[in-house]
């Protein structure tokens, strides 16, 4: 009886899982075996791995996702650290979370305004006498905006990790003669590394397939896998190739998950 009841509770989630996770993934894998002319399986994969264009796109995606993750991390860790020591930290944290409630496209359009020739950024550059410059549609602006958008997703897990850190560890380290910096390097950072890894997962994986930003802010100078998928599905209608890239992206995500997951060591802290 109880078992059957429990299955009842599982039903909505199970349906959601089947319809919106398992089925789409299955369809993508299935589609990825057919090219435009419904030719032989694995054809798309051969094309993908033989084509310099696709490999370069992949390399680009990974490279830019790496850069975005790196910058996000460099900004987010100190921010989370300082935030955690503030008095009204819940309030400051709310300010960090707030931008995530606004649609990403709206934010992208806002940046078009800010970075445009007559925008605020160039006005400022003109004011201090070193402008105007072409800011929009550059790789730098793409990375800047992407980083800006991803920062909250990195700050939150790091903040939570800092929050979970038992202050007694810090005291113990100081007690044993460590300086503030040594305490940070040897105790605080290693113990909050799980938070950093969670942040990397939350930032790196979505960054692999960013596509609206590459167009709106980056001016399509960088074609990432996300852009390629969108083009194949909506413009060239080559669903097979789009699905193939999708599968590659899924594999990449799995690899990143594996690399950043805390492997449970028998009876030990994840090291």
């Amino acid at each position, binding site marked *: 009886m109880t078992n059957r009841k429990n299955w009842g509770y599982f039903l909505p989630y199970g349906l959601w899982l089947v319809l919106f996770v398992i089925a789409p993934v299955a369809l993508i894998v299935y589609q990825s075996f057919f090219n435009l002319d419904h030719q032989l399986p694995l054809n798309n994969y051969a094309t993908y791995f033989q084509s310099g264009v696709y490999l370069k796109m992949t390399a680009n995606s990974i490279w830019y996702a790496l850069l975005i993750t790196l910058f996000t991390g460099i900004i987010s860790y100190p921010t989370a650290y300082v935030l955690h020591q503030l008095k009204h930290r819940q309030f400051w944290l709310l300010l960090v979370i707030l931008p995530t409630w606004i649609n990403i496209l709206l934010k992208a359009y806002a940046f078009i305004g800010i970075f445009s020739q007559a925008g605020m950024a160039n006005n400022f550059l003109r004011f201090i006498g070193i402008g105007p410059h072409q800011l929009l549609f550059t790789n730098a602006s793409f990375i800047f905006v992407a980083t800006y958008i991803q920062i909250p997703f990195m700050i939150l897990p790091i903040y939570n990790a800092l929050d979970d850190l038992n202050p007694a560890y810090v005291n113990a380290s100081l*007690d*044993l*003669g*460590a300086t503030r910096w040594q305490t940070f390097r*040897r105790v605080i950072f290693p113990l909050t590394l799980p938070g950093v890894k969670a942040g990397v997962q939350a930032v790196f994986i979505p960054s692999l397939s960013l596509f609206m930003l590459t167009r709106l802010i980056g001016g399509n100078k960088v074609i990432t896998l996300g852009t390629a998928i969108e083009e194949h599905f909506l413009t060239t209608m080559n669903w097979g190739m789009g699905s193939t890239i999708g599968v590659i992206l899924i594999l990449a995500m799995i690899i990143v998950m594996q690399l950043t997951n805390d492997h449970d060591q028998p009876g030990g*802290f994840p090291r």
Partner: protein
Amino acid sequence: MGQPIIELRHVIQRYGDHTILKNINLTLEPGKFYTLLGPSGCGKTTILRTISGFNQVTSGDVLFDGHRINDVPANHRNVNTVFQDYALFPHLTVAENVAFGLTLQKRPKSEITQKVDQTLKLVRLAGYQDRAISALSGGQQQRVAIARAIIMQPRVLLLDEPLSALDAKLRREMQYELRDLQQRLGITFLFVTHDQEEALAMSDEIFVMNNGEVLQSGTPVDIYDEPINHFVADFIGESNILPGKMVADFQVVVNGQQFECSDAGIPTDEPVEVVLRPEDLTLTDLAHAKLTMTIDTQLFRGDYYEIAATDTRGHSWLIHSVNPAEDGETIGISFRPQDLHVMRLHEKEAEFDARLGTYEGTEDADHDQP
């Protein structure tokens, strides 16, 4: 009696309107085992944190070897702490934890390894070097925490209720080990606990605290035998406390009866409190009885019977007896004059010590016949 290592002079600690420490004065000498004993919230951990450098006092001086160290940060003090929850670094192995302080000093690897091995042997954990902290039992973690602190060769080791997380049997074992370790290393230990049994068993000297004050300090025997007031008598061990009145030196009236006691120097007719320890009360026949009471209940405690009784005036008594009694039985109780300890109301420790000094020498001769 050497030069004191640590001295607290007129230390006061306030948080807002709360006064956590009210004028604390204490002196720690080298090589002794000290205990701060008191109920939770009495300020004993605050004193520990003051000495370790994690707490800035509102006023007063903290001296180390005669130098004021109020403004010396924790990482520059020659004092180490064994924390209540051990605070062992979970991302490091046992050896890495123990070596933590030495690696900070950039000592050569071979020296560190040798010292770690030595220290682990000292706490009976040889061979545990590469274990993860989470793979250790509570008692083993406890020992790693001690090893991590003593490898630094501190002048003073602070222990913040380190045994509270262990089960009763292990706790007793660790009491022996800590005491033994302290004597072998010759380091001053300052041990914080709310467990009076632990304090009595291990310490050279106990500071009994309540509400941010040190009420009484002295050897375990002194404090047990001659508690200064109701709180100390009640907190340390079990006791029967009754109101009484001093009628002359060495004579006190309790329960309408006059008894010989071992206290003097108290004005005649002053109201006092009288303490009788349960184990000092002996069951006897009515003919030899100093007090007559009726047995209410008794509990078998293994090595003794804990007997609850009521005297003819309705006071409840607690008696520890090797022999059982009968429920409802009327029985006589006797005790020796020196078992009856008189406490003045609101007497401070300095006054208490001064008063004891006036007659202690004669007391032993006159009143200590078995």
